[in-house]
């Protein structure tokens, strides 16, 4: 066990757990934040993705020891923002959500993209979402949702 201090959704937090615990498990089991999902557990699917210092990271491959001093945003924190609302509306409007397991990761990946590139091209959207698997939608609706969000939320990113 070791104490690790980081910022989680805007608030400083210290957890006392083994450093080799997966950050995904810390979020889900110790902190009750179950928005981040476990799909594959080996960095293939992106369902567990969170933002570390504003950029997308897979929490299933992140040991707790890597989070010391970092700024973490999960879907639970992100959903309180205006940007989230834009993305949520766009995902609903375009039918980009079916079973929903990939959705938190897709939303975080979209935020990470738009934060760095507010007006992404189709190709840039595809690159940004390349690490997030969806078995329902066939992706087209998700790409359209990101495009719609970029347009509707102009100025927010």
């Amino acid at each position, binding site marked *: 066990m*070791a104490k*690790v201090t980081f910022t989680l959704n805007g608030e400083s937090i210290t957890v006392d757990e*083994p*450093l*080799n*615990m*997966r950050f995904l*498990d810390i979020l*889900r*089991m110790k902190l009750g934040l179950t928005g981040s999902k*476990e799909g594959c*557990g*080996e*960095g*293939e699917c*992106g369902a567990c*993705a969170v933002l*570390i210092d504003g*950029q*997308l*990271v*897979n929490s*299933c*491959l*992140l*040991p707790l*020891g*890597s*989070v*010391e*001093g*970092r700024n973490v945003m999960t879907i639970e924190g992100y959903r309180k923002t205006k940007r989230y609302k834009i993305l949520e509306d766009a995902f609903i409007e375009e039918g980009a959500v079916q079973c929903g397991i990939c959705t938190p990761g897709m939303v975080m*990946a979209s935020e*990470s*993209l738009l934060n760095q590139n507010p007006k992404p091209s189709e190709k840039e959207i595809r*690159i*940004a*979402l*390349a*690490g*997030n698997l969806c078995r329902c939608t066939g992706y087209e609706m998700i790409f359209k949702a990101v495009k719609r969000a970029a347009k509707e939320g102009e100025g927010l990113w």
Partner: protein
Amino acid sequence: MKHVIPKTYKEALEHLSEGTYKVLAGGTDLMVKNRSWSETPARFKQDMLYIHNLDELRYVEDKGDHLAIGALTDYETLLRHEAVPKVLKDCLIEIAGPAIRKVGTLAGNIGNASPAADGVLLLYLLDAQLVIERKGARREALIDDVITGPGKTTLSNEEMIKEIRLPKSTFTKTQFLKVGGRKADAISKVAFAGAVRIEDGIVKDLRMAIGAVNVTVVRLREVEKLHTGETISAVQDSIVSIKNAYVPHIKPIDDQRSNRVYRKRVAFNMIEDFIMNMHIQD
């Protein structure tokens, strides 16, 4: 087993001097290799040093004759940095997805020493020099002299990679080709990186590196040197003998990703394609 987050790089070297620690940088390989059941800690087999918080090892600096890359600099940062060579970026954008690239590092790619590592392939192509340190000592070594086999390096238990140096070079054409199971998020079946500098029809610098066809990346500097200084057509007329020179070194294996027959065929096609088109700009 001990698990430690050092506060500084100096402190990290101090812990390493005990000789029992494994360094975890991004963790994208180590966390998969040592994966346990969900909701239980990763099953590391030795003391672990978690260095992800050492921001002092995150930098890209233009040093005039070379580019200095701090060991913890991630792929996404390299992709966005203007001084990073195009051929390296062409490779990095094909590695995994953004969420892995944000934590994945070249130094980790070296430490993991997979023959199929795309990042390492480019380090061979670009003549990367590694700055390796342990408490009170420092050495520099060419990438070829550090990686010795699958998962094997000359790094001792007390050492870690501090910096990667890429000597500046000018090329008239570069190429990175990766054959994988799908377009994104895939590990290479075979990978090829080539670079050439042609001046007034003369080949001044010729480099080819091939990944996932032997225990380490294959780069035959003596073959490259043999044809340096020749005209384009002289080099291209030698394509049969060039390919023959690679025969003893292209020895791929059958595994879950591909098989030796396919890998061999593709590797030789990539060599021929690069040589025969090296004078044609993209």
